[in-house]
């Protein structure tokens, strides 16, 4: 009888732990795709964005996997992101020109995937940047990119990231360096979606009010 009571108490305890411990509210299961996304922007605070007048944007998206360029694509989604960037740059007062017309700013777009240990290091992304976006593309063969604001960022990764890099072409020439002046990074669920490309790019620009020519 005594043993039965002890077993009963133990069973009650286990049920209690199972029921209530199992009721832990899982943040990932209580999150929409939109809520899962984060928008990260970094910029060189010494740069005056009003000094740039024109820009050009890459005609495709570089697909970078585990630090290596896989290919450059122009899918419907890629085109939607490129168009969204054009719309926001125009709204901020910058004039779109071809890359042969010596733009002040160049914009590169990359889809970044990492299948390694769930950790991504952005300095390594920028470390190999020349191999994704050869400065030759902008007419500056033999130059190197330089990102003064690159900071180390480690996150658990479940999906890819979309990276938008803005580089200063106007001042390239003296020291064989093309300086990155702004980077926008989008991470989270279902980011590669043409129907949400505009709102995602707008989020990057909304938190970057300093990108403005007509100020």
């Amino acid at each position, binding site marked *: 009888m005594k043993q039965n009571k002890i077993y009963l108490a133990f069973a009650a305890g286990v049920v*209690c*732990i199972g029921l*209530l411990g199992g009721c*832990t509210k899982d943040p990932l299961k209580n*999150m929409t795709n939109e809520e899962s996304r984060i928008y990260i922007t*970094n*910029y060189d605070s010494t740069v005056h964005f009003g000094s740039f007048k024109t820009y050009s944007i890459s005609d495709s998206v570089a697909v970078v996997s585990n630090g290596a360029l896989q290919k450059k694509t122009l899918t419907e989604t890629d085109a939607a992101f490129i168009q969204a960037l054009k719309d926001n740059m125009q709204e901020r007062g910058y004039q779109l020109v071809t890359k042969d017309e010596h733009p002040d700013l160049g914009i590169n777009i990359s889809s970044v995937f990492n299948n390694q240990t769930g950790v991504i290091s952005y300095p390594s992304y920028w470390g190999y940047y020349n191999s994704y976006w050869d400065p030759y593309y902008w007419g500056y063969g033999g130059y190197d990119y330089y990102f003064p604001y690159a*900071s180390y960022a480690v996150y658990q990764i479940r999906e890819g990231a979309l990276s938008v890099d803005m580089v200063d072409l106007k001042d390239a020439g003296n020291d064989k360096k093309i300086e990155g002046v702004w980077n926008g990074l989008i991470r989270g669920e279902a980011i590669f979606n043409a129907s949400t490309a505009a709102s995602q790019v707008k989020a990057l620009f*909304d938190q*970057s009010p300093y990108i403005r020519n007509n100020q």
Partner: protein
Amino acid sequence: MKSFKIFLIIMVCTGLGLPVFAQQQKLTMNINYAVNTPVRNFKSDLVNKTSFRGWNANILYGVTDKLSLGLEAGFADYYQKYPRQVYDTKGGSVSAVLTNSIQTVPVMIKGRFNLAPSGIVQPYIGVGAGGNFVSYNQYLGEFASGKSGIYFAASPEAGIMIPFSKHGASAFTAGAKYNFMPYTYGDAKDLNNWGVYAGIKFSLK
């Protein structure tokens, strides 16, 4: 901390000198559903919502008719999601929906003092002190960072027992406790909370 020690010593000394009644030498188990509300820094910086996902359970041995000593374990799950907001970083900004998810599992040595062991309604006071297993994750979007570990916890309490029969050990229990839970990580300075609970107590021996 010092006041907790004094409180515990007084409880033990007082209890040992009391006459022996029906509860002495009985081993009882008490299981309660618990609701916990963050206070102070925990409430202002991490979670300001009450947790309805909690329990506590103890096994106590009746040293005297009034004093019982034993072990207690508990669980509480705290969760809060903050709407999307832009946060400044060293070189820029991050826009994210921020979610705090915190679980506490205190495991403590427990003392409970019955103020009216022969009453129809038996008020009691008690205190527990021990370790607290904390799991804290802060999500920016779906990306988590956090810190888990074992910390100190202490919980003074007051409550009532209503026995189901005149001389039986089984009873309905209800009470309130303050959970003192130091913890430091990021903006967090403590996980202090107060809680109410209700459940049943029954004899194991």
